[in-house]
């Protein structure tokens, strides 16, 4: 009896210590705030064959964030970072809008455009990957260059214009419904589940974490560091490309200076909310998904309550700082440990 109770208590402790749990609590709290402001906030309507309501809007808005958050999660697991996700989004958006604006609007055109846009996004991600894995540059420098150059590339592609295009099939990706649920959210979930199965049902996830913990040791243990890093940055680029397609297809316009702007902030925030340490070596895709949902909920809540949206980035940055501090608690205990060791060695030195 007491055994069961203690095990339950331990389980509860584990859940409470799990950072993603606090993410869920935060989502519930935000929704509760909305319900207080408007009791009908959570109601889900059903009209003309699809669900509608604020919750559905949140799900739809979360799709691009989920994509970049999962990509970032994998990169962070290897001890790296990808600052270029927002810029790769705008490049993918620019490529698709520029291509579609010169086409007829058939489904085939949409498919071709999608393939080219995602291909270019993957190539940009692979460039990051080569710079990090083969050339051996620090990840933040390589991806910082890509972050700033990427927006330049997008501007070159569209000639500095905000290109608009028309293609019903392409727009369906972001605005359509299947079984009443937004396509964009279903696609995002399918992709997340695929990635999660791939890394957690195979040894891939462990290998990524091994690189993040100690790149040298992982190499000695036979992990192919270079090809894995190359893959991870390419996948991050691909997912950012998908996010860019989602973000531009909903309005069928690419805004070269605003699409994906500062979304690396959202991706990093989603990852740290999910309990993934930015120091690398461990990751949680489920946590990143909760983080992404929380950010989408936060964005929608801010708009819904009429709080000036300009304050959101500063608030998000403060949350990142606080979560970084919480994560560094471990580092501090390490310091305490080392200090104790040093004191001990000093004592021994005095004794000798």
């Amino acid at each position, binding site marked *: 009896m007491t055994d069961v109770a203690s095990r339950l208590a331990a389980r509860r402790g584990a859940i409470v210590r799990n950072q993603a749990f606090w993410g869920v609590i935060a989502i519930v709290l935000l929704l509760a705030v909305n319900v207080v402001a408007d009791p009908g906030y959570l109601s889900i309507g059903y009209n003309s064959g699809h669900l509608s309501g604020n919750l559905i809007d949140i799900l739809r808005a979360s799709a691009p964030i989920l994509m970049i958050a999962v990509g970032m999660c994998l990169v962070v697991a290897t001890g790296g970072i990808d600052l270029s996700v927002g810029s790769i989004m705008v490049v993918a958006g620019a490529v698709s809008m520029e291509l579609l604006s010169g086409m007829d609007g058939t489904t085939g055109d949409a498919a071709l455009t999608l393939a080219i846009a995602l291909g270019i996004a993957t190539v940009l991600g692979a460039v990051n990957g080569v710079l990090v894995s083969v050339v051996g*540059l620090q990840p*933040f420098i390589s991806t910082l260059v890509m972050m700033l150059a990427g927006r330049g590339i997008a501007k*070159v592609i569209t000639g500095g214009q905000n290109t608009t295009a028309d293609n019903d099939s392409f727009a369906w990706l972001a605005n359509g419904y299947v079984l009443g649920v937004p396509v964009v959210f279903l696609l995002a979930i399918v992709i997340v589940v695929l990635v999660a199965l791939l890394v957690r049902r195979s040894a891939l996830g462990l290998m990524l974490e091994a690189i993040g913990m100690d790149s040298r040791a992982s190499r000695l243990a036979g992990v192919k560091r270079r090809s894995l890093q190359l893959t991870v940055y390419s996948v991050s680029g691909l997912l950012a490309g998908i996010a860019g397609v989602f973000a531009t297809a909903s309005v069928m316009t690419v805004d070269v200076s605003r699409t994906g702007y500062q979304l690396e902030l959202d991706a990093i925030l989603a990852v740290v909310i999910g309990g993934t340490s930015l120091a690398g070596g461990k990751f949680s895709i489920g946590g990143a998904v909760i983080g992404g949902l929380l950010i989408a909920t936060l964005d929608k809540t801010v708009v819904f309550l009429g709080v000036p949206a300009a304050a959101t980035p500063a608030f998000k940055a403060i949350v990142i700082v606080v979560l970084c501090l919480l994560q560094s608690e471990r580092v501090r205990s390490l310091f305490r440990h080392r200090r104790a060791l040093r004191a001990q060695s000093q004592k021994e030195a005095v004794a000798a």
Partner: protein
Amino acid sequence: MTVTTRPPTGSAPGTAPSLAERLGARLSARLSALPTVAALLIFVGMIIYGEAAYGRIVQFNTLSNLLVNNSHLIILAVGLTFVILTGGIDLSVGAVIAFSSVAGVMLSNAGWHPVAAVLVMVLIGSVLGLISGVLIQYFGVQPFIATLATMFLARGLASMLSTVPERLADDSAIRELATQLKIIDGDKVNDLVITPGVIAAIVIVVLGFLVLHRTRFGRTVYAIGGSEQSATLMGLPVPATKLGIYVISGTLAGIAAVVYTSRLGSAQNITGIGWELDAIAAVVIGGTLLTGGTGFVLGSVVGALVLGLMNVLITRDGGIRPEMTTIITGGILLVFVILQRVLAARRRATQG
């Protein structure tokens, strides 16, 4: 022990090791200065090319504009030299400038005394630098993550203040910091002019040089970059120094904000996007190793001027779109970082 790759040139066998060592030392000293020399050669080469291809480069007007328009970048580059010498990074400088200049312009327009407004602008930089420094030094957060967080924070705070261009009142005393002082009166508009901003930049460069090469603080900066552990074991004040360099970098970003705002006469929350890349590129082009330990302030000044001159040449050429600038800057940065890695590898090979 002996250098196998470069046999000593025909000296007596008895003296060979010491000679070889001296040769190796001389060679490595040359190698560390090589990128700076390269930057200087590139600068001279660009001037010659510009003069030959477009004309009107080697004249007072163009050269003083080069200094006036890039004084803020020079100031930023000096700050980042300190940070990069320790092996750290400061990604927040561009965003600090945005927040500081928007706040300064608004305060000044609200009737604050210009001296007080300028002081607040500089202090904003110091405080944000202090936040980064505390996160890095006392909470063990990686420099790029801590300064990324301050970057998002400063950008967010700037957006909170205003999202539209804030114009500095025409009669504001801050504008006088950009008064053009004629040094040499050439024919027509071909004058050698400097502004108080340029004087500030020159003073900061000289101070930076003196601090790095003539003070205990400066030597500690180099020692941390060489090996933080060794510096700690030598009993150098590592924590205070590391905190200090981020405060210096932030403060200089604040000063750069004053210089830039006084010249432009307005400020916006999107001011300074990508300037961290420019400043890092200036430092790296100037021959400072991104991994720390080796580098010169004067090299960073040359690096900043190379970037400034590049902008002038791009404008003169007219065939290259301005959107390409960030792509080119990023490309140059990557080339130099790769060059550094090659040189570092060769130095390891020569030193055995």
